[in-house]
């Protein structure tokens, strides 16, 4: 999580930078800074949830499908955890994915709404 927040922050900032003009256009046609921030956070949360679900699904497939290989590879007995334990772990993983994605998008969302929309639009014309 410590590594992923700055990494996702950089990616979010790059995406936000590419979309600065789109955001400026939205502001010019009536979007408030609050609306823009909510849109960006909603998008980030959606991607985080999708990423979390894909990650949990992939982990489940690996755990179930390769349990014999894992047990022989690590030379330890390997027992699939109980359904309750799996659900708790999946919940924690999903929570961390959402929190990480949300935190990582806060700064880009704040920064993009602080740029001058009209200057951004004009700059994009040249």
């Amino acid at each position, binding site marked *: 999580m410590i590594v992923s927040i700055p990494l996702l922050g950089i990616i979010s900032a790059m995406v936000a930078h590419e979309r600065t003009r*789109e955001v400026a*256009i*939205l*502001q*010019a*046609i*009536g*979007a*408030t*800074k*609050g*609306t823009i921030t909510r849109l960006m956070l909603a998008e980030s949360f959606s991607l985080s949830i999708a990423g979390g679900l894909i990650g949990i699904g992939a982990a489940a497939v690996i755990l179930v499908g390769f349990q014999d290989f894992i047990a022989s590879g690590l030379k330890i007995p390997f027992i699939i955890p109980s359904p309750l334990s799996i659900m708790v772990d999946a919940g924690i993983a999903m929570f961390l994915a959402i929190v990480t994605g949300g935190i990582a998008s806060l700064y880009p969302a704040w920064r993009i709404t602080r740029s*001058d*929309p*009209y200057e951004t*639009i*004009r700059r*994009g*014309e040249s």
Partner: protein
Amino acid sequence: MIQVSGVTKAFSSKNSEVLAVDKAYMEVKKGEFVLILGRSGSGKSTLLGMLAGLIHPSSGSIRFEGVDLSGLPEDKIAALRAEKIGFVFQFSGLIPTITALENVLLPTLFYHDGPGNRSRAAELLKKVGMSEREDAYPHTLSSGEMKRVAIARALINNPSLLIADEPTGDLDADTEYEIMELFGQLNREGMTIVMVTHNPDLISYATRTYGMTRGKLVKNTASFSDKEEDMGKPKIIGP
């Protein structure tokens, strides 16, 4: 509809201030087609940005339908833009990942009480001659077609003012004529339009003209002489 009183806009540079707009006075009445002529860098787009509440004046006041924009918080100005001002940019400003019809509907997201709906969007696309392309994505449209969609988008919330910043600047002569005819038609139907351009040939469409040179706004300017070639540059003041 709009009263601009002594509006100045200065931008800070490294060691000096650039005066983009210098004590501008201007009035726009309902139903007018106002053209602001000026060369690149003359300050006309800055003035337009201030009329739309996207740029804050350094001094002076802008009143829109009796409301002083400088006294409004940003959210109120954004709401006013959504409800009462349609904006057409030099480039189309369409969002590339959604269709022409969805682009037209975009401003309705920010003005929930507006008249915008799919049937109105389709009707507006028909009005601008784009009914056949409502499901097309922007990258498949020509510059003129994109501009038509942008005009339809500007009209979706039934604004009282249409602001256009060099809307024909990137178009060939034939397409420019078509787009200007469309603006002329909208004005004849009662739409108030404020447009900035560097092209004096468009004056015939306007009911009132202003010229802008080095941040100074002058009423009834019809053209620019060759001697004014360097007059578009903004004025630099102070050390």
